[in-house]
């Protein structure tokens, strides 16, 4: 029986844990910050680098490396900005952290700010997360009261302020450069790179944008050391991660797991198997933008590299399970409509391609499909893939191509002459 490995959720899973400052401190909270303040910023960055923690937002880029890219001695302020714009369909882990244990996240954030020399932290929270924002604001207020934040962070000479910035509902603002534009008060659309945010990000200053879960993991990395964190996962995929399990399973929810446990076990052990004893039809392993896996493909370790091997992605660790009754064509149409709606529209293939794809899929849903249209859909999606400025175009094209590849019969059933 697969068990959770509690690191980030060690407090959350404790009965009676309230998530306020007092209860967090009672569980030994803010000891990592105390430890960190005795170190130099460079030491912290090297520990994070050593832990090899990979970004939990979707791309899986090593966080320590990202931090070490930050331009130094520019004469400008540096920024560490937290991406809490958790918009990937199927993902709901960051919300849980902010709701249930905001201090663990804030502690990691303070350490990060200290490490990168950031004196004003911005938390860009998805606009729909109103309860999470309230909880987070309450926690920040508590920190100010306790002297953890403010002109001198916990008695050190390091001043630190924190601001919550609610997003306005755009999926694309979860892309780090679009997030920065939105934070600056501009229209939220991805910027061209280079320059990378580490050189010119928020207001043209060196900036690192990190996911809530990644930042929370920093707390435990500093607390327990890089080695302990590495031991929790597989090589190159260190630590634990929060898995958002949803869809046709008996026990959906957020689970904290080691990297590299079996995907099958997650669904059948933790998830309690498929609802109503139905058969499994497919699994989207990392948020809706990742290619789908068939039932026979899911017996693999659940980490970044193993999923790459089966030509899918772990993304933001959001597993969406669907049973045999699911109409995959309608499912795909719904997903593509989402990406069409959320495309910022600035770059050509994504703007025109996502709409075109959704129009073709609508034909299928209305039983107007044909072999030519299926080929056209493949061609249009294939053209979006790799040709766009940010990953949104790819996010729309990848599921289309994988669904067509893996469920050709289902599409054929929607041909006009079927």
């Amino acid at each position, binding site marked *: 029986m697969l068990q959770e490995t509690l690191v980030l959720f060690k407090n959350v899973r404790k009965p009676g844990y309230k998530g306020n400052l007092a209860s967090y401190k009672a569980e030994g909270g803010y000891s990592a910050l105390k430890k960190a303040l005795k170190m130099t910023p460079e030491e912290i960055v090297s520990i994070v680098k050593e832990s090899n923690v990979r970004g939990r937002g979707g791309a899986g880029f090593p966080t320590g490396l990202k931090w070490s890219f930050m331009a130094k001695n520019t004469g400008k302020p540096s920024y560490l900005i937290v991406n809490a714009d958790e918009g990937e369909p199927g993902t709901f882990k960051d919300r849980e952290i902010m709701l249930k244990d905001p201090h663990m996240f804030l502690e990691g954030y303070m350490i990060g700010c200290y490490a990168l020399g950031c004196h004003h932290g911005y938390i860009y929270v998805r606009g729909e997360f109103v309860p999470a924002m309230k909880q987070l604001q309450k926690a920040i207020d508590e920190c100010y009261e306790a002297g953890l934040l403010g002109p001198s962070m916990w008695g050190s000479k390091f001043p630190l302020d924190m601001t919550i910035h609610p997003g306005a509902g755009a999926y694309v603002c979860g892309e780090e450069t679009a997030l920065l534009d939105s934070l600056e008060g501009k229209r939220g659309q991805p910027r061209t790179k280079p320059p990378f945010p580490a050189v010119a990000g928020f207001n043209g200053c060196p900036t690192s944008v990190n996911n809530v879960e990644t930042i929370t993991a920093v707390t435990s990395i500093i607390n327990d050391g890089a080695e302990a964190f590495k031991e929790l996962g597989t090589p190159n995929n260190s630590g634990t991660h929060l898995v958002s399990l949803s869809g046709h399973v008996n026990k959906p929810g957020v689970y904290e797991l080691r990297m590299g446990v079996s995907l099958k076990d997650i669904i059948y052990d933790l998830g309690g198997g498929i609802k109503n004893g139905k058969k499994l039809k497919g699994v989207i392993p990392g948020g809706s933008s990742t290619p789908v896996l068939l039932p026979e493909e899911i017996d693999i370790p659940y980490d970044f590299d193993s999923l790459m091997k089966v030509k899918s992605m772990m993304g933001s660790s959001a597993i969406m399970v669907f049973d045999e009754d699911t109409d995959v064509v309608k499912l795909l149409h719904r997903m593509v409509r989402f990406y069409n709606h959320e495309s910022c529209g600035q770059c050509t293939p994504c703007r025109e391609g996502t*709409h075109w794809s959704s129009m073709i899929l609508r034909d299928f849903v209305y039983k107007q499909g044909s072999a030519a249209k299926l080929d056209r859909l493949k061609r249009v999606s294939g053209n979006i893939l790799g040709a766009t400025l940010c990953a949104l175009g790819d996010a729309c094209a990848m599921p289309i191509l994988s669904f067509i590849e893996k469920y050709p019969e289902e599409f054929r059933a929607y041909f006009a002459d079927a």
Partner: protein
Amino acid sequence: MPTFYLDDNPIEFEPGEKVLAAALRSGFHIPHYCYHPALSIVATCRMCLVDVVDMGNGRPAPKLMTSCSMDPADGMKIETKNEKVKEARELVMEFLLVNHPLDCPICDQAGECTLQDFSFEYGSGSSEMEYSKRVYGWRDIGTFVMLERNRCIHCTRCHRFTTEVTGTHEFGTFNRSHQLTVDTFTDRPMTNKFQGNMADICPVGCITEREFRFKRRAWKLQKTNSICTHCSTGCNITVEQDQNTVFRLKPRENQEVNQWWMCDDGRVSLRQFNNKKNRIMQPMGRVQGTLVKASWEQIYEAIKDKVKQLAVKKDEVVAITDTHASNEELFLLKKLLHDVFSSEHVFFPLRLWAQPDSPNFIDTLITTDKSPNTAGAIALGIKGNEDDSALKQVLSEKTKLAFVLGNPLGKESEIYDLVSKADLIICIGTVLNEWAERADVLLPGSTPVEKEGTFINKNHRVQKINAAVKAPRHAKADWLILQELIQSLGKQSTFQSTSEIFNSLATTLETFQGLTFEDVGDLGCSLPAT
């Protein structure tokens, strides 16, 4: 210098320069829409995708790169003509045309539309799009440009122009996804004075000039390099005409003067060039109080006789000119007074001028000096003072003969009364204005689009205008009229062309320090510091 290779052609680049910019500078073309050298790089049209087969370290790039945003590296090898790139361009073209109305037959941009050109050059020629196209409602965005949003390909050059170049921020992008559109904020009209540039930088027919709309197909226009004569900045332009009518003035890139831009007032200054109603079409002389038409020979003969009869002495002659006259004309006017009458009484109205003090370069293009050659008049040593006291001084004594070039005094001036006392007033001009009722002789000159000449702009840059259209049958270039006046009054002047006059004045006058007409060229040249 570090070098990268574009289809095996070595291109040197400076640090910070992008691949596309370096390629364009070296004369290699990579198709692009959203990139404009004056604007920030957004890399959104995806048309400039290139295949980097070697990033300079022996490895190829993982996917096609946008050359507009890519930093070159020493030894980098880039291919722009292989199958991969060709296919990518075809696809981008197809995507761009998915929602484009293809209304080229009624679109003013047709003929100079990059969407059209690249479709032919890089497109596949077919589309599988079978759904109805996106349609936007018509929007009125002001008096100078038209917005036809259905044609938009969302390069956002217009949006970036108003934020980065004019700083007026009245234009933006709205909505998302395939419904993305450009528009003004909150239904307000455009307010900046440089809207015509938005039509210029718009690669398609989404933004077009109202003045030019439906007047002429772009491919019929003949273009002549010239400069704008509407103010003392002297923006470099092309005069575009068909069948002897000027249809539009378009800015021409000159980094030293106007970069890529010109103002809207300058653009509509073409209206005066097409003015046929008020034009002086033939030489006219006053006979018993009324102006009657005459031939050039008759007029010159009459002038010669009258001058002889008046026995004009040195102090009894005056010439007043405006600074729309070119250096050559001013030189000959001076020569006329000097050679024939030994007089130096050549005056022009010198007015204080200013230009907006602005952090945006483009605002400094508009000066309050609405004549192109004030600096030239000063360089030629023509007398000008702000309150015209010197001119009044001369006119207060007995003046028998007055030469007037252009319209130096404007609508109202007390000098009109002083000049009117002269026995013979000879005016060279193009339109019937305040002088028509005062002059004894009206000689039909040429407008700036009908003649050659040089001007000196506010920053002491010598620039050239060229003849784009023909003057009316009996009109002559002003310099020629002045020369013929000198000849008919019994002195020598045998210049064959403006270039001869310029070369001659540049050698006689110290301020020009031996510049030649060839030195001026299409882009002008700075006057050597004195």
